Structures are given as C-alpha cells and as structure tokens.
C-alpha cells in the first residue's frame, strides 16, 4: 500500500474521504475540474484556508476572476494571501515554476488551466515543464491545485484536450458536477454538487461525495432531503 502523503483537509469530511489521502496531498499535483458553479473554486479556497495554518499560500489567477470577498467568506486570510495575476503566456508557466521553486509556499491554486495553456507556445512550454514541476513539488512539499473546465469526453479519449498532460501527472483528479439548485421558500440559497474521484494515487473506498454549497460560500455537508428543499 502506498504511503499516505501529508495532506491539507478541504474542510469537507466526505470529500476528504474520497481522495484516499484525507485531503489535498502536499507535494503532488491535484486537478479539480468542473463546469462553472460546480464548486471547484470553493473547494480549492477551503483547502487554501486550511493550508494557511501551515504556511503561505498563493493563487495564480490567470482568469482574473478570483473574488477576494468570496475567498474571505471561505476562510482565507487575505492579509497572508499571495494573489498573482500575470498575463497568460509562456511567462505564466515560468512564473509558476519560480513560485514553486521559491519554497516559500505550501499551496498554490492555478485558476485556470485553460488560460494557462490556450496559447500554443505556452501549451508547449507547459507540457515540457510538467515533469520537472512534479519533481519540484515533491522536494518542496507544496500542493499544486489546478482548476479546469472538463473537456468533452471524446477529446479526452483521443487525448487531444489541453489538460491531457496534467491529467497524466496529477496524483489526484476530482471532478465536481453541478446537481441542482436548492432553496427554502422558493428562494435560491444553495446548490448541490457531487464530487467524483476520477483518479487517485491512493486507495479509497468511495469515489463520490455530495456537497451543498451555499451562495455565501458556506459549505454544508449532505445527506439532505431533496424533496423538501428543491424549489423547481
């Protein structure tokens, strides 16, 4: 049985249970994929908030859409957050390598993978840098979390999608799927999402967890009664 790596909890016990290593593994690449509003950013922010107890954290915000107010709601201490907003391109890949190499950070979130690799030159640079990056992470014990939109399944089968390289090297790949809106008295207050472990380097008994995400960033954990709470 492989040795469990040190991990940062996501703060959601059901989600930690399906990763096989009790959270987001340190020293490895984690891929969180999911469509918009699927909760992948929320999970990443929760992990960052927990990682802040151990060290400094950074967000490489390539999409330029990280909301500090929401991060604060998820528990991140903004005074100790390193928010980096480079322009997408080859420089962003080099910057990511430099951030990991600095050994000052214990967790980095890359938002998002598509913005990092949409330029051809950046994509090629990134593919070449993935292996050194994985080795570097192991020596620095830094958790690297990529946020990504899911590629069409036929592209994945043919390995034509741009997240192919990172999928191959990721120790943990979780896909978040939006399930339905929830609310009370016809007012939308939550939405339910399900997290699926598509790949984990560590054995895990279950591969699916249900999570409720409130609009203000609070996270509730199932089980819950759909029939009582759904409003449409």
């Amino acid at each position, binding site marked *: 049985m492989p040795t469990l790596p040190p991990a940062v909890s996501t703060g959601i016990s059901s989600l930690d249970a399906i990763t096989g290593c009790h959270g987001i593994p340190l020293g490895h690449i984690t891929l969180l994929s999911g469509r918009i509003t699927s909760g992948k950013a929320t999970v990443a922010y929760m992990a960052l908030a927990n990682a802040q107890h*151990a060290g400094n954290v950074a967000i490489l915000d390539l999409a330029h859409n990280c909301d500090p107010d929401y*991060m*604060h709601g998820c528990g991140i201490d*903004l*005074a*100790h*957050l390193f*928010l980096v*907003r480079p322009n997408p391109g080859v420089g962003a890949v080099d910057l990511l390598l*430099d951030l990991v190499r600095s050994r000052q950070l214990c967790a980095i979130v890359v938002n998002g993978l598509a913005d990092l690799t949409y330029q051809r030159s950046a994509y090629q640079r990134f593919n070449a840098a993935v292996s050194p990056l994985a080795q570097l992470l192991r020596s620095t014990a830094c958790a690297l979390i990529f946020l990504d939109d899911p590629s069409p399944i036929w592209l994945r089968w043919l390995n034509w999608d741009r997240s192919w390289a990172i999928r191959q090297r990721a120790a943990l790949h979780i896909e978040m799927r939006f399930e339905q809106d929830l609310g009370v008295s016809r007012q939308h207050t939550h939405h339910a999402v399900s997290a699926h472990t598509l790949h984990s380097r560590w054995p895990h008994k279950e591969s699916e967890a249900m999570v409720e995400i409130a609009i203000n960033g609070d996270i509730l954990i199932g089980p819950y009664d759909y029939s009582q709470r759904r409003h449409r």
Partner: protein
Amino acid sequence: MSVLCCYVPDFLVHLAGRREPDLASRPLALLGPDEHVCAASPQAYQAGVHMAMPARQARTHCPGLIFRSVDMAEAQAEQSAFQATLAAWGLPVERLSWGAAYLDLHDVARSKTDVQPLAGELGRQVHKQLGQDQQPAIGWDSGKFTARAAALRSRPGRMRLLGKEDEVTFLSPLPITLLPLSHNVLQQLHWLGIRTLGQFAALPAVAVQQRFGAAGRQAQLWARGKDARPVRPTVNAAPGPITIDLDPPTANTSLVLAAAMHALQPTLQEMSAHLEGCRRLRADLHFLGGETRIADMAVVEPISQPASLQSLLAYHLRTLTWPNELLRLHLSILETGELAVQQLALFVEQPLEKAPLVQMAKELATRYGPVFLRAEFTNPSHPISARRFQLHALI
C-alpha cells in the same frame, strides 16, 4: 523519581574539531556508515541540515557544507570516558546518545536544593574530563524526558532544575521536534498546526492513539510531563536472540535477508512503540560444514525503521565471505537505546510573516513585472461584492 540528564552539546563535532582545528566555525556534517548525517555543527543546523538527512540532500540545503566521517573508535573512547566519570559516583547511569546520559539520583537527592550542589560538582568533573572545548549542560526533573528537555534548553556550562510544579509551564512552549517521533508524524503534526509540546499535550488522547499509534500516545504522555521510565543500566535489556533455521540451506542473500527482517519485525514494532531503537546487533551465521561467521553491527544513533535495519544487515551480509550455504542464523540485539530526535530545534518557530513573501515578490517582480497583488477590504458592508475590497500592488 529523580533523574539528572547530563548533555554535552555538539559532542561529535567537537571531537572532529580537535583533529582539524580549521573546521571551527564552518558548517560541518558528520556522516555515519550509511552516508546519512548523524551530527552537524550549529552553522549547518542553521542552514537547514538535519540529522538522518542523506548527504546529497544536506549539500542542497547548505552548499558550502563540509563532510567528515565519524571516527567511531575515537567517539566510543570519549563516550566511555564520559560515562565512566558519571558512573564514578556509583549511581545507575543510562546512555542517552553521544555525549548525553541519565543519572538516577533517586536515593541521593530529591529536591532542588539537594540536587544543585551535586549537579554543579558533576558538571565540573565532566568538564575536566572532556577538556576545555566541551561544556556540559545539565537538566533535572522527576522524569527522563523533561530532564532531557531541560538539559537541551540549558546553555553549555549551566543547569536547569525543575520541580513537579514547573513541568507543564516549562514544556508547553517547547517545539514538538524535541519528541523522537518519526519524520512523517512530525510533518503531519506540523500541517495540523501543532508546533509546541503544549499543543500536542492538549490533543485528545484517543485521537492521538488512533492516528499515531502507541508511539504517539507515549510521546503525548512525555509532552504532559508524565514519564515513569526508570533509569536503566547502560546496556539496555534487549530482547532474546532470534534463531532462524534455513531449510533448505541457501547462499541467496536476499532470501536470508527477507527471513531475518520477517523475524525481526515484531521486535522492531515493539521497540518503535516505546520510542526505542536498536544500537548494536550481532548476527551469528552457521554454514554447512560447521563453519561460522559473526557480524557485529553498530549504528551511530539507535534505529527502529525496518528499512534502515535492512540496509545495515544487507551491507554486512553481502560483505561477509560465505564459505558454504547458510544453515542457521542467530540474531541478537545487544544494545537498545532511546530514539534520537531528528532536529534539535530549541526555539519555538516564529509565527508566519509576510516578510519572506515580500522579498520573494521583489525578486520575481524584476522579471515578471507588477503582477503580485494584495487584497484589502475598504468597504466591507458595501452591497456589491466587488466594491468591498481593493487590490493593491504588493511591491
């Protein structure tokens, strides 16, 4: 109980310094037979070199690091002289590590006022025996762990005597790295935000037992100042010899090694649970035709990890001349000892600061431009989320 711990800081480093005076005030690491760091000078510790670190890794932490091998014969002779000085008082002495030992004062002195003159006299004698460059630090308490922590916390040439009522106050702010836990356990505790003995002691005992096993529970008791272990004679009571009959006889080292490790596994687990390790191991090999060979193995610091013991055993078995197929193997653990702590960080880690981040941002900004930002809430009650904060350039 009344336990006195006498600790000579940088014992092995000073011995190396005697041979080569040029090494003084330079980063120095002493390597054991397995090419791992077994002692390092204060300059090397400051650069991030730890005990049990491979030489290559130590070099990456400290590029100017000088490596020397431990002269085991000289170190053993000096250690014997050190222990003989302590044993001259006719009290039970237990070896802790190089240049460190426990002395049982149970029948002689039980209060601070009684211990103080004794400790002073002992310190003077040890200093006289070991020479000008080696000053002992002395700690005293009712338990071994707290006495050791007190000795580590004292400066060379000083003593720290603790009463029962001072234990918790003294232990609480000390770093968790004083406990001889494995690197994995320490790292997990670090990520959980547990940095001091006080924080570790405050954890629920059940949770500690569940997550870190018997060794974790034992360590937590020590962190709470509860250590009822008696001071034992220098050669600790070791488990009885293990006999392995090989049927059919074999000359395959790997098979022998696997059988030996399988037989040693329960003993190692038991030792590990008590935070103890093997310091000396003897293997008697009986070959077909009646010939025998003996391999005596000694390690610099006690080990309880199966992988470390396996590599030690493998090295000796492979360098031995095998006249015939091996018929029987006797393994005897001759000496055990308390596991050594991996890093003697004597000061509580400082809280996280932004300074290193700002420095890093300054360095990276020269290449990537002003891409590093800091979010600051300017109007937290604004109804529009995006107007509650502003982003400022960090540099």
